């Protein structure tokens, strides 16, 4: 919503306030000013004001009102004229090419001087011929042999609008010599209107806010002043009646009539204000509806009354049986009625019936933008007996539109259901200034104000005669809440003490009706007598507001008004005095964060990806050569989006690993080494209920094991055991004693894939990607990946703490043993046997070599372990160690057929 300062001043005196002050006051009260465009008024002196400012200031001396006495042809140029002009002090001959001066060229001294905006030599204005806004300073020059040093200005040159078709013709009240800035200097504030500020989508509304926030008087326009002198003719109530089919959708509909209007341009000041507010002036009648809408907030619609009368006379309105319908259809009466008798009978009752109803599906209407629109049953129409005239509250129909030839105007002001208007405007992509207001809620009481105000503007600007009366159908007035406010309510909500008397004053400035009343003694028992003298404020919202609720909601709504007027900044900051609530923590989040910390400490980079994906993107997790992705598609159900921004983001993911691999692929040529993880949800549909959102952890690593440095060119790449080391590091840090078993998983290499188990419970799977899966991606190196179920892991993390072993002070006995075993024997089996047999004395076992050779024999391998024996009770002797060693070797020989390698 644009707010021209000159228009605001009609309703509130803002003397002493700079434009910037005003912007600040409005912003803090919830009317945020986005930017300020100056069109004449001086720009702020300092630049630390905190607003985006643009535009131009008009020099008081150099830009003044002038009057043209005579428009003469240029001796050497047909398209130029020479204006004989008076600037209040001196006469000048001013050269101009303005087309709107041509009609006056060479007709001698004008009957009535033309008032114009005059820029003297040296003044700075915008260049009218440049694209965009380019400042220029007027200098003396000779154009086609004639001296030129000053100009008559267009709106573009003064920064009022883009308009550069001709120069401005000011209204008659402009006095030559008056500084232009005094006559019409302006600044336009761009105000963001919040959804609950429907009342402020107009200048009077904003003026009311300024008045309330600055403690000034609101000068409301006298709506009846312009009406009485222009009344005449048959009352509209004799001519028109209104039928409302659905009051829920159309709580009020009013009509008025004005006759014998002369369609012509509006006065200049009206045109200028409309352009400043972003509306193109069209004609006095259309402008009057728009001006009134911007002025007081009621959107209005003007019908060409004679078009309605014409439609009515050929419509089958007066027929009561089917035969006459047929007459119009086939052009030949089946039964002769005296039609004129019927018309005569009909004319006793009102001629025109305007009705509002919902559209029948498929019904069509050509709106005044020339588009034929097909309507649905939720669209509300304004109709006459011949059919639809306009889409209610949104846009008029082309047929009944006001034209240059219009003389009689039927003026509509109505109230509509804001939800319905919103839906219809969205449905037809028809945002309009009217629907903008109606879709936020316009109070039905404004209809009459709107009609009155608009009629008086129309009479003033077009010379029309207003038909007495208003046709008013008001089946559903809104509830008028009374809200009770106590001082204690204010203390409770805002934490401040304000006497009711002061609150009353604040709310009255916003036009609430307020009345201080004693609390009814009869409802209090004796024990409460000491508070029986407490008063409350009975508050009624003004008939411009639909945003104030009832009961305790109404109290909260009024509280916001009190806080706004009191000033949010004036409410002191306090620290909560309420007791600290029970401390519950969030165990699963704490554990999840622990997992993140461990992985980062192991050198991994955390990533966070989009959770929307597509099945075909996730299917890349399966080998490319078979039909597994089809199978997956038929098995895996997705949480699907009904609306999506792109098909690649049309479902919620089922795999975090797929997200992680996408990132690895994306970075494959950016980073030579990558170790990444993501913790996040996957989404599993559950019939009509909300989906499951289990947490997953996925890890991927690829690239060089050692980063390239200047003195090492080691090209070794990550393999299975790098990832396994990482997984072991994670499990160790989580204090989970897991085991690893060969596993099968379609995404992984069949020989390089392991399951992580805690007892029998699977926690996750990891390995090298299957070559046929890797083929689905643009990878540079083999990719190792892991996929964990955090829902399984997190609850297993020790809640209190894991037990810590004591540290022995005695020296160890160190020994290496190498055993030869079958190639197929899993290494962890040998180690488990060694540990079991070694018992408490065996402090650590470390596999330090795996060796194969002809000497050992085919199908065999050698495993070499470094053992550390140590006791907590004393120094072990070689003899002690030898005893343990012997037991270990015997056990290995017996259980797995191992042979000691000498």
């Amino acid at each position: 919503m644009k707010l021209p300062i000159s228009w605001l001043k009609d309703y509130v005196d803002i003397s002493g306030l700079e434009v910037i002050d005003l912007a600040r006051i409005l912003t803090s009260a919830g009317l945020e000013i986005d930017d300020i465009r100056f069109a004449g008024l001086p720009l702020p002196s300092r630049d630390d004001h905190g607003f985006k400012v643009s535009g131009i200031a008009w020099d008081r001396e150099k830009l003044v009102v002038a009057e043209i006495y005579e428009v003469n042809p240029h001796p050497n140029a047909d398209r130029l004229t020479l204006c004989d002009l008076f600037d209040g002090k001196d006469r000048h001959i001013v050269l101009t090419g303005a087309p709107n001066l041509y009609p006056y060229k060479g007709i001698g001294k004008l009957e009535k001087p033309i008032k114009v905006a005059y820029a003297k030599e040296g003044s700075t204005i915008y260049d009218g011929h440049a694209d965009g806004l380019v400042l220029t300073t007027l200098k003396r020059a000779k154009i086609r042999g004639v001296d030129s040093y000053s100009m008559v200005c267009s709106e573009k040159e003064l920064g009022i609008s883009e308009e550069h078709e001709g120069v401005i013709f000011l209204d008659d009240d402009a006095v030559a010599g008056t500084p232009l800035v005094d006559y019409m200097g302006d600044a336009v504030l761009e105000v963001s209107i919040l959804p609950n500020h429907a009342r402020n989508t107009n200048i009077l509304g904003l003026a009311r806010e300024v008045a309330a926030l600055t403690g000034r008087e609101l000068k409301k326009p006298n709506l009846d002043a312009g009406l009485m002198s222009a009344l005449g003719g048959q009352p509209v109530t004799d001519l028109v009646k209104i039928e409302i089919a659905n009051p829920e959708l159309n709580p009020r509909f009013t009509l008025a009539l004005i006759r014998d209007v002369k369609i012509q341009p509006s006065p200049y000041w009206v045109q200028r204000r409309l352009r400043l507010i972003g509306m193109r002036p069209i004609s006095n009648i259309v402008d009057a509806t728009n001006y009134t809408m911007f002025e007081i907030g009621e959107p209005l619609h003007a019908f060409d009354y004679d078009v309605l009368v014409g439609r009515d006379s050929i419509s089958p309105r007066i027929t009561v049986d089917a035969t006459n319908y047929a007459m119009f259809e086939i052009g030949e009466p089946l039964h002769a009625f005296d039609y004129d008798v019927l018309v005569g009978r009909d004319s006793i009752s009102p001629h025109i019936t305007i009705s509002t109803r919902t559209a029948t599906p498929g019904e069509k209407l050509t709106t005044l933008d020339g588009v034929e629109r097909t309507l649905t049953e939720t669209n509300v129409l304004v109709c006459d007996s011949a059919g639809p005239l306009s889409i209610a509250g949104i846009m008029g129909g082309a047929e009944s539109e006001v034209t240059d030839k219009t003389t009689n105007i039927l003026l509509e002001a109505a109230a509509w259901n804001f939800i319905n208007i919103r839906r219809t405007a969205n449905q037809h992509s028809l945002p309009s200034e009217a629907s903008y207001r109606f879709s936020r809620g316009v109070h039905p009481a404004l209809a009459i104000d709107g009609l009155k105000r608009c009629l008086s503007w129309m009479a003033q600007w077009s010379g029309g005669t207003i038909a007495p009366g208003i046709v008013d159908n008001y089946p559903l007035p809104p509830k008028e809440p009374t809200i009770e406010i106590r001082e204690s309510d204010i203390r409770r909500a805002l934490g401040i003490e304000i006497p009711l008397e002061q609150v009353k004053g604040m709310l009255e400035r916003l036009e609430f009706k307020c009345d201080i009343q004693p609390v009814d003694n009869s409802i209090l028992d004796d024990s409460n007598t000491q508070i029986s003298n407490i008063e409350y404020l009975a508050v009624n919202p003004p008939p411009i507001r639909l945003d104030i609720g009832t009961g305790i909601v109404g109290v909260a709504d009024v509280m916001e008004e009190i806080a706004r007027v009191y000033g949010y900044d004036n409410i002191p900051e306090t620290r909560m005095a309420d007791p600290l609530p029970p401390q519950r923590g969030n165990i699963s989040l704490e554990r999840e964060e622990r997992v993140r910390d461990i992985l980062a400490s192991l050198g991994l980079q955390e990533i966070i990806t989009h959770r929307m994906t597509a099945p075909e993107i996730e299917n890349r997790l399966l080998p490319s050569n078979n039909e597994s992705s089809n199978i997956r598609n038929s098995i895996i159900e997705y949480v699907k989006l009904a609306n999506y921004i792109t098909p690649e983001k049309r479902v919620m993911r089922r795999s975090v690993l797929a997200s992680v691999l996408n990132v690895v692929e994306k970075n494959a040529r950016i980073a030579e080494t990558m170790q990444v993880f993501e913790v996040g949800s996957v989404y599993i549909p559950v019939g009509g209920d909300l989906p499951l959102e289990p947490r997953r952890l996925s890890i991927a690593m690829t690239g060089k094991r050692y980063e390239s440095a200047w003195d090492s060119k080691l090209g070794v790449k990550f393999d299975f055991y790098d990832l396994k080391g990482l997984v072991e590091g994670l499990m160790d840090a989580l204090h989970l004693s897991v085991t690893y078993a060969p596993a099968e998983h379609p995404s992984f290499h069949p020989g390089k894939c392991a399951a992580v188990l805690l007892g029998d419970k699977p926690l996750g799977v990891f390995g090298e990607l299957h070559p046929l899966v890797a083929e689905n991606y643009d990878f540079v190196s083999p990719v190792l990946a892991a996929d964990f179920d955090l829902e399984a892991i997190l609850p297993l993390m020790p809640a209190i703490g894991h037990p810590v072993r004591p540290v022995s002070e005695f020296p160890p006995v160190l020994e290496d043993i190498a055993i030869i075993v079958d190639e197929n024997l899993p290494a962890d089996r040998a180690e488990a046997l060694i540990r079991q047999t070694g018992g408490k004395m065996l402090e650590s076992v470390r596999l330090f070599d795996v060796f194969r050779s002809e000497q050992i024999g085919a199908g065999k391998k050698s495993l070499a372990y470094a053992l550390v024996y140590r006791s907590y009770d004393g120094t072990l002797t070689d003899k002690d160690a030898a005893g343990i060693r012997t037991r270990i070797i015997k056990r290995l020989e017996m259980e797995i057929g191992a042979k000691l390698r000498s």
Partner: protein
Amino acid sequence: MLEKLNEIEKESLASLAAIEDESALETWRVANIGRSSPVMSVFSQMGSLSKEERPLVGQRANQVKVALEKAFAEKQEAVKQAALARSLATEKLDVTLPGRPVRRGRLHPATQNLRRILDILAEMGFQVYTARDVESDEYNFQLLNIPPHHPAREMQDTFYIDTGETDESRKQVLRTHTSPGQIRAMREFSAANPHNPPPIRIALPGMVYRFEQITARSEVQFNQVEGLVVGENITFGDLKGTLSDFVRRMFGQNAKTRFRASYFPFTEPSAEMDVECFVCGGKGCGICKNSGWLEILGCGMVHPDVLQNGGYDPKRYTGFAFGMGPERQLLLRHKITDIRYFWGNDMRFLEQF
């Protein structure tokens, strides 16, 4: 014999003087003061000397031995010093060569900032409450005072889930804000003690989703952190004080705040809290769009309907709520111009945090 000893001493000292490295020195030691060196062999020949000669020769041989040993020790030290000096002089590294790379793991910048926010809130008594991503229309909108076709729905473009559900309340959406967690928390806490529900002080972090094109300035998903306080004595002054405290912890003790009236369907009164631009100090710059202020969070007193929907009697309880965007803070702090970097996961971006 004495002459021979003099000669031995002279020759040995002369040959020692010429030595410069440790191996020659060792050779000299073996040759000149070792077991079979000339001076040592003099001791073994003592038996063949006369009684008169023996003490003289013995004394002299001892003198020579001590002298040679002393000279050796001195030489040894000198050689060591010379070697050290040589090695110090030659072993000169280019200290400007880069060190060997160590791999550093990192948390995603969004996680880092989320934690920072939650840590500060935790110190202020806010506990973390997490809720789901896919929500019902009822929880995401209706219970938060946003009925179907409410204008506020246009403030948040919504992803709907394709469930075939026609009942408006049971329609599923990707949560557009973490606020449905407010209802879930209040209902959970009040269910345990419906007549006397406990006070609440929670932080609600999580990913939220908006149906928008992905551009440098808009994303389909981003984190949000909300706070919710409910109690019997919670005022708008508490809201201001708590949030100003938070901002001073987050942006420095000198951070200035400004509260403006605003609108959210689930709070009344509602406010927008701005922090004085930390880039330009309030003078106006590109980051704050020349306003001198940065919009950091939206807040307000919990709407009575929302308290009621959560099982807290609005006649007895009041509360405040606030919400902020961690990624937005990062954009401002680090002058990041493209919001797509966050979920783009380019290592060159992530490695800068």
